[in-house]
């Protein structure tokens, strides 16, 4: 199987990796870079648990080949807050509004919501619904997730967290 050398930036850090053409971006992140917050719920692009931001846009990392991410800037859940630092407003919103139960789908949803709020700091209910519509959650019934997104909007508008200023 042919291999390719790719360079990509993940959460601000540049990585150069030798990969098989068929290696998925999710497996690169999880197995090579040990960034295991990005979860695999279906491996066929439906559940959205594996969502990362690829050059600022949500991408299903299970359907994206690592070679397609050549030169790209990737953001994952691990990059939202420093390990001991203050949580990102979206993370904080999910905590305060009980927007998660088992937490397996949460990383993908959080990344999609982060992208939504960066694009539109005060999204309509329809926009929120459209964003959440790309994700499956089996625990919450989504009601508290919608509240969590609203809380994130509120927290974001209140003050900018250090993570946001840094970015």
């Amino acid at each position, binding site marked *: 199987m042919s291999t390719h050398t790719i360079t990509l930036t993940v959460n601000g850090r540049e990585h150069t990796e030798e990969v098989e053409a068929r290696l998925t971006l999710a497996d690169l992140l999880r197995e090579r870079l040990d960034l295991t917050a990005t979860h695999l719920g279906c*491996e066929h692009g439906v559940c959205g648990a594996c969502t990362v931001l690829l050059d600022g846009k949500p991408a299903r990392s299970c359907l994206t080949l690592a070679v397609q991410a050549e030169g790209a800037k990737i953001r994952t859940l691990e990059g939202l807050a420093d390990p001991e630092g203050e949580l990102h407003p979206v993370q904080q919103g999910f905590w305060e509004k*009980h927007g998660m139960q088992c937490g*397996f789908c949460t990383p993908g949803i959080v990344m999609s919501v982060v992208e939504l709020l960066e694009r539109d700091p005060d999204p309509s209910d329809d926009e929120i619904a459209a964003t959440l*519509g790309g994700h499956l959650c089996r625990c919450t019934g989504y009601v508290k997730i919608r509240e969590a997104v609203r809380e994130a909007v509120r927290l974001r508008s209140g003050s900018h967290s250090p993570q946001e200023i840094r970015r």
Partner: protein
Amino acid sequence: MTSHRDGDAIGRSVLRKEDEPLLRGSACFVDDLHLPGAAHAAVVRSPHAHARIARIDPAAARKAPGVFDVVVASDISERVRIPMRMHSKPELEPYLQPPLARGVVRYSGEPVAVVVAESRYAAEDAAQLMSIEYEPLEPVLDGPGALSGDAPVLFEETGSNMAAQIEIVDGDIGEAFSRAELVVEEVIECQRHASVPLEPRGLAAEVDERTGRLVLWGAAKIVHLNRRILSRLLGWPLERVRLIELHVGGGFGARGEFYPEDYLVPFCAIRLGRPVKWTADRDEDLRSTNHSREQHHRIALALGADGEFLALRDTVTFNTGAYVRTHGTVVASMTAGLLPGPYRWGAYECRIRQVLTNKTPAGTYRSPGRYEANLARERMIDIGARRLGLDPVEVRRRNLVPLDAMPHRSGTHIDGKPVEYDSGDYPRLLDEALDLFDHDEVAAWRAADPGPRRRRGMGAAYFVEKSGIANWDYARVELNSEGRAVVHVGSASIGQGVETVLAQICADGLGMGYDEVDEVRHGDTDEVPDGMGSFGSRATAIAGSAVLRAAEALRQRIIAAAAELLEASEGDLEIADGDVVARGSPSRSVSLAELYQAAQPVRALAASTDPWLKEEAYFHVGSMTFPYGVHLAAVEIDIETGAVEIERYAVAYDVGRAVNPLLIRGQIVGGAAQGMGGALLEEMAYGADGQHVSSSFMDYLIPTASEVPPLRVRVTEDAPTPLNPLGAKGAGEGGTAAAGAVLANAVSDALGSEATSLPLTPERVLTLARASRDARPSRPSRSRS
């Protein structure tokens, strides 16, 4: 987090202890565990629903790049069968599943071999090279059909597809039916659907080189029980087997049971002498993890003129799939035991046949056996009420078990134990639910004209749940060196928030603050000596009671130790902000961290006291407790597309005592969403050849944010159970229990045509709408007789 007084944690909606690692991405689910040198397993599964295995040739797979090993059935002792852990019956023994199919495959997806290789990619490549010759046999898929004389038989040894039968008869059923004003009889069917936790199953196993002990990561739900099973199947002493639960991506009944892979992965690790990891993909998860719910009810109600419930008779066929799995007869006995619901019946008869077919084996799914029973009973009540010209809600009210009849024996039994509803004010909760729903407002909405293509309807469903099956658990509470509390408990975390709830209970038992409970540790058989785990809404009621007992005992120890140090009387001391202080003289105090130091053996033994500040407790209770609830739904249907829109949905649920109302509401809403999926979307569908045709998320539709409406939820505490010191009844399943029933009732009301099977897909809704038009061409559907 808001500050609060010590000792008032129970009843508050504190934020969860679990969330931070999940939000930061530092949580470790089993596939996140990277063991150095681990090999990866791929399970080779049968592509046939029913076939004889003529030949297996692993030679090509063995030679494939990166392959370490291939395991086939002949490598495993013929005696290994996955046992029943509950409700086991000797007549079910012949139907237990071997880890790898022996001679015959009985469902599409059954494990036939395991390939172990250097990576998941290499293992799956090599799995394709397995040469297996099958001789296809005719499959049998339909539950009732499997009992007909000419149906293919799954197990030649017994010659019958009937795995088990349960029969409950109470009262004179013939007499009751003979004096009925109205008898209604229907076939009501609940379709096969399943728990489908979002994290696929996975496991990692390793024999520790230094100690020779086996460690299995990825266990869930019932870690200690599975350790016993694994130890027995491997023939290893219990002490040489350690199971560790990591983060778990949802349970809902299916995850955590002992599956073939729970034997195969450790077996491969032992055989290969290196760590082995396996992660299911979604296709194999949907084809191999327990299905549930497939029941066929031939059910009849005998009603008096005023709607009095004279008798209920039901013959149920439960399609258990190709093997009997770990639950034995749990689902069937739950159906038979709880089918009467919250009502008084003059007479009752239920016969359940648990039937084998060539489908994925079935097990429990949130509100197992009750979702189906509630559908059948509550549908029939609506059908009967309509035929009598009575309001279905009023008919329910007239027949509820009254408050003064509590505790109430329903006349049924579960696993040999009589069912006794321990407490409940059923009429009161019905009023609460109607109030929450704004019933009059909905009735007016329903009566208004929605336009020519639309129909409106509403429905109610009342049910009794159960909690605390498997009747004991273990807890240990201790102080750590910082003077903070640490709990060890036999429960498991499957995402439900058990750490938070048990920390709240611990805090109150100790008289300390919630934030001073440092950790709730669970799910590691080395850290917790024994326990029953988390299933059947049991953790709060059973393990919570053990935590409370242990915490209260530790509080006594702490106060006594402080009394000695401070030379004060115990009655004058209290715990506040990490110190034990004398009331009225705050200068006389000792910190909990100092007490920890004083309890070190060197000092404690010198002072002739017991070392360490820790207490253990077991809680054991003879019977289950019975929470109860009401679902109400209003739907609007587009009769051109068959789409069902849920306009309003309300759940009122009495849990006896709500330890964390926020989390209970989360359980109810999440549970209801699953129940709505079962009502409208989800089906484990099979082709006539026995192929599973919904084994992807493109085909198996779980609800998305677009399908789940806002819900009205009311959690009441009218009827604390007398059976445990908390009064708590458990809250995990009431959100799901009646969702199928209530939506079927609302859709039937809207269309004026009786829905008798789920899911209510657009196709089925359109069929019902047509049936209604054909039946009453002059008056479309709105009449309620």
